[in-house]
């Protein structure tokens, strides 16, 4: 028996080696995949996490295509069918929806981390510019995606998007009919083509340029990310809304990454200026920053102007996003409820942006460099306590898994997703504890060896 298993292991090893040898002829060896042996800050590989969420979106989206019907009348009904009748349809749709939100969020965090740590400099300009374009494509991908449902909210977004395209000087009337076709019946098919093929293809091509050669695949964090998707899906299941109806006025607010633009439009400022030129200024600021900031300093502390600019841009986005969600229900008509007083709006964003810029700039310029804070002591886990923690985590994971099955069978799919998310989250923690204890033990062993060598000599 023992020799049998040894033979099988040898066979598998040879097969693995054979495959790896032949992979050296492919482009896959260009990328250096690193599985870190100890915890490193996820800020450094937010881009890889974004790409992993993109892969999740690709898989879940491909399965949704089996049931989705890109037709002006049937689209909503088919999404409703996926949500309510198709086995696992609810789960797939929620994974797709929440992963899309998470992808936009991760991309924004990735942008700001790279910005503040000065990563756009020193030969990284191409990475930076492709990243900005990828970010815009991500938003467009999310936008075309949530319009495919053809509910009231989707129609509001389509309406705003088409209005903006039409209002573009010179090119507008030429470009808009490309999306519009002969009416809504054409529009939904064209958005579908954009969403499932054209935009993802462009993103993949750009990502091939944008990927750095070293990719960090950190399984505990990936597990936590998957957990976060499921937990948020369980807590906030994706809404279906109501089918678009051209005789009903409803107060709808777009997805959170578009409410900033929506706020500008609601002030009554000329449409193209509000919805396209002002956001474009924001994008251009990020596009040209590597060509303006030529200093060789990387840390945010050493670049008071650009750090202040970044902080001000975060404040700008936050304030306009909050304005976008603001609806004054004390007013009578939908139009008055959504109207934003321009002086109040532009006053608040100008005031808060300038104040945050000034405060950051002054704080960083006057800051006296003190001594570096002492490095934090690593937590050392004894093998016994690590085992205890892992056993406790395993018990919780087992309980969460049992709850997942139970709630699924009593037809509470969102509860089921929540518990599955908890299980993934805890599994990530478990992997982390395991890796950490192994790592600290190995380090202690090497330290002891070095000590022994030193005392011997």
């Amino acid at each position, binding site marked *: 028996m023992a020799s049998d298993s040894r033979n099988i292991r040898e066979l598998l090893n040879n097969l693995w080696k054979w495959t790896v040898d032949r992979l050296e002829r492919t482009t896959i060896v260009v990328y250096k995949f690193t599985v870190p042996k100890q915890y490193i800050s996820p800020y450094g590989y937010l881009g890889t996490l974004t790409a992993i969420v993109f892969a999740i979106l690709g898989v879940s989206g491909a399965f949704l295509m089996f049931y989705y019907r890109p*037709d002006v*009348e049937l689209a909503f009904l088919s999404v409703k069918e996926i949500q309510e009748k198709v086995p696992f349809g609810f789960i797939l749709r929620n994974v797709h929806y929440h992963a899309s939100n998470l992808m936009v969020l991760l991309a924004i965090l990735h942008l700001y981390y790279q910005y503040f740590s000065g990563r756009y400099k020193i030969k990284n300009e191409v990475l930076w510019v492709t990243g900005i374009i990828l970010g815009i494509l991500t938003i467009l991908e999310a936008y075309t995606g949530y319009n495919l449902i053809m509910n009231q909210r989707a129609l509001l977004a389509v309406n705003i998007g088409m209005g903006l395209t039409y*209002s573009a000087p010179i090119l507008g009337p030429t470009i*808009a009919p490309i999306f519009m076709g002969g*009416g*809504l*019946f054409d529009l939904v098919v064209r958005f579908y083509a954009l969403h499932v093929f054209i935009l993802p293809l462009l993103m993949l091509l750009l990502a091939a340029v944008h990927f750095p050669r070293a990719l960090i695949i950190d399984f505990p964090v990936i597990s936590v990310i998957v957990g976060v998707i499921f937990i948020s899906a369980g807590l906030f299941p994706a809404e279906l809304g109501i089918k678009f109806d*051209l005789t009903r006025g409803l107060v709808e607010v777009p997805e959170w990454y578009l409410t900033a633009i929506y706020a500008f439009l609601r002030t009554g400022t000329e449409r193209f200026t509000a919805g396209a030129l002002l956001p474009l200024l924001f994008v251009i600021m990020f596009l040209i920053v590597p060509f303006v900031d030529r200093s060789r300093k990387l840390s945010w502390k050493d670049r008071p102007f650009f750090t202040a600019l970044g902080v001000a841009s975060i404040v700008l986005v936050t304030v306009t996003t909050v304005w976008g969600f603001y609806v004054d229900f004390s007013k009578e*008509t*939908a139009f008055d409820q959504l109207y934003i007083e321009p002086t109040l709006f532009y006053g608040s964003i100008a005031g808060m942006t300038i104040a945050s810029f000034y405060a950051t700039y002054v704080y960083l310029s006057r800051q006296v460099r003190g001594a570096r804070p002492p490095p934090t002591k690593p937590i050392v886990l004894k093998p016994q306590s690590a085992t205890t923690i892992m056993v406790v985590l395993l018990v919780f994971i087992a309980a969460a898994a049992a709850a997942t099955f139970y709630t699924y069978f009593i037809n509470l799919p969102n509860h089921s997703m929540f518990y599955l998310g908890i299980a993934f989250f805890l599994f990530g923690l478990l992997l982390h504890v395991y890796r950490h204890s192994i790592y600290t033990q190995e380090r202690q062993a090497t330290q002891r060896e070095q000590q022994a060598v030193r005392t011997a000599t």
Partner: protein
Amino acid sequence: MAGAVLAVIAPFANLVGYFYRKEEEVSKRQKLANLKDLSPGSYIFFSYPQTGDPKIDNDPFRQYVLIMTHDGHLRVYSRVCVHLWCLPSYIPSRGALICPCHGSIYRDTDGVAVDGPAAYQQYPTNALPMGVIEVDQNGDIWMVGVEGRLGYGREWQRVKPDDLVRRVT
């Protein structure tokens, strides 16, 4: 030489036309009604250009209304509200198209919004696109084209509504 190159390229110059739905029917004449059927204050809903496919013909962006105003003028308007794409109905007693969603009110004489959210939009986005019509000797009313951008408004160049009603003799 340049002429030869042009002669070769010319047939393919309209490749970008693929991106637009080719609508020979848009310039096609479509009979709407006869003057005998209309009296001041009456109106007819119809879709244009008609294809015979109910899904396409029922599309909101193909819905129009033919109106005879109280002073006897003929007008054709797109029914897609330029505010948020709802479908306004014609209220003869008020001489206006009124949108059911947010209450935009359009004058029936020129299709310009006089009240409601659409009225707050700047020209040319505060007016319904208009249909171009011809009236022949028999009194038949034909739709021959559209002036403006559906769901958005008019073109920048202002056109007198009466210029879009042609008498063919």
